[in-house]
């Protein structure tokens, strides 16, 4: 059902934890949907993401998408990091089952939320197109 990469990131998640006083923080989802994703960012003066951490409540693929998302954005400048879309997350994990695509959308939205938080605090203009109303890939609207 899951690719080896998903299982690897689920079993050995990278960047689990929190960052005290983060420069950017994003939280997506709610417990009644079965998923919550939190991303913490440490961002330097050149807007480069120096560190990223996550905490996730959810299924194996929610954990795996959070893990790979933090890997993908680490070292990137915030504008580049915003190009880590759910598609990129899915590809990096060698695919996700159709019912689990919403996890990758959550990962994308969590990244955006964390960067937006940083951008807002620092009055930086960023290009975020997705709306955050679908905080869990649409499962809440059911």
């Amino acid at each position, binding site marked *: 059902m899951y690719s080896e990469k998903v299982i690897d990131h689920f079993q050995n998640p990278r960047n689990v934890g929190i960052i005290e006083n983060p420069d950017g923080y994003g939280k997506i989802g709610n*417990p009644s949907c*079965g998923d*919550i994703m939190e991303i913490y960012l440490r961002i330097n003066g050149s807007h480069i993401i120096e560190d990223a951490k996550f905490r996730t*409540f959810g299924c194996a693929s*929610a954990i795996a998408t959070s893990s790979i998302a933090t890997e993908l954005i680490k070292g990137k400048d915030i504008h580049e990091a915003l190009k880590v879309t759910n598609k990129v997350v899915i590809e990096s994990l060698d695919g996700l089952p159709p019912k689990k695509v919403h996890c990758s959308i959550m990962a994308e939205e969590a990244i955006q939320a964390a960067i937006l938080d940083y951008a807002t605090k620092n009055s930086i203009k960023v290009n975020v197109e997705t709306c955050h109303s679908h905080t869990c890939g649409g499962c809440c609207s059911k």
Partner: protein
Amino acid sequence: MKVVYLDNNATTAIAPEVFEAMTPYLTAQYANPSSQYSFAHSVREAVETSRESIATSLKIKSSELIFTGSGTESANLAIKGVAYAYRSRGNHIITSEIEHPCVLESCKALEKEGFEVTYLPVNKEGEISIEALKSAITDKTILISIMFANNEIGAIQPIKKIGDIAREHKILFHVDAVQSVGKMPVFPKELNVDLLGFAAHKFYGPKGIGGLYIRNGVRLEKYISGGHQERNRRPGTESAANVVGMAKALELCINTMVEEGEKERELRDYLETELTKRIPECFINAKNSNRIPGTSSITFKYVEGESILLSLDMYGICVSSGSACSAGDLAASHVILGIGVPIEEAQGTIRFGVGKYNTREDIDKVIEVMPKAIEKLRMMSPLYNVK
């Protein structure tokens, strides 16, 4: 890696004796049981001897038992068959909120056709209220459908009391007994049950065969078109191998029911005692209800069921979150929500199904692995206060 199979409510292994009994009908004796020549006679005889044997175990007449393709089909045939046959008398059906999807979805399908359905709530032990049942009955009620034991939490319903009420009001009573037949004495006539379904693969028989008791005198409209097999209620060639397998499996279970029940209860209680001792903030669902012996449903706070399931899978331990039938869904279990567990906690529920091939070593493996797995997931969870 050794597989530790603790999902016996989803399905069970075929007992070797069952496999052996089935083999002749998968090989040399392949004739269609409905054929007229002598070569087919022994196959028909095997089907009818098996029917007799199962009927005796259930204390019903063999003419009151038909074979279907699954427990799901039995429930569909019972509910829709009665609804269509008694439509002129009324259009109201009473069931519970925690039924298996084969019952709930049959009822929902009938709602689209103009039937009205009352879904009775359950208390925290998973039992319906007899008073609520009584007050739900109207002059249009034609059918009550309540499961014997719940597939996720194991809670046993007060079937005799419900049967008495149904009989008193001349309402037909269907019981989905898929999780009970083979595990506990089930005698539909003594319980005033009119229709009762079960499936062989839940008690060490083959998959692909179900049974349905239909009390003599109950009308049923068949919804599969075809020949006149199974007293013109279920068209399709009977699988003699499956029928023989089901009969053998039930015979084995009946012979050892008391000892097996004791053993499973002991293993389950050991599992529950040790897990709740070793893992903080978890609770057993429907703990104080009368439960079938091997079933245990435990909710672990702050973590999600599928991630628990897959963590155990890494060690070869097979369990389920919710039921196998709802595993494709993303939503929390309707049964766990139905007994009043808050939705955010319901997500972290695991069902264990202890069966006759489980050993104390199997349980020890879970006890060893699970506290670490839960702790690891909790450390990742934003709901868990790690400070």
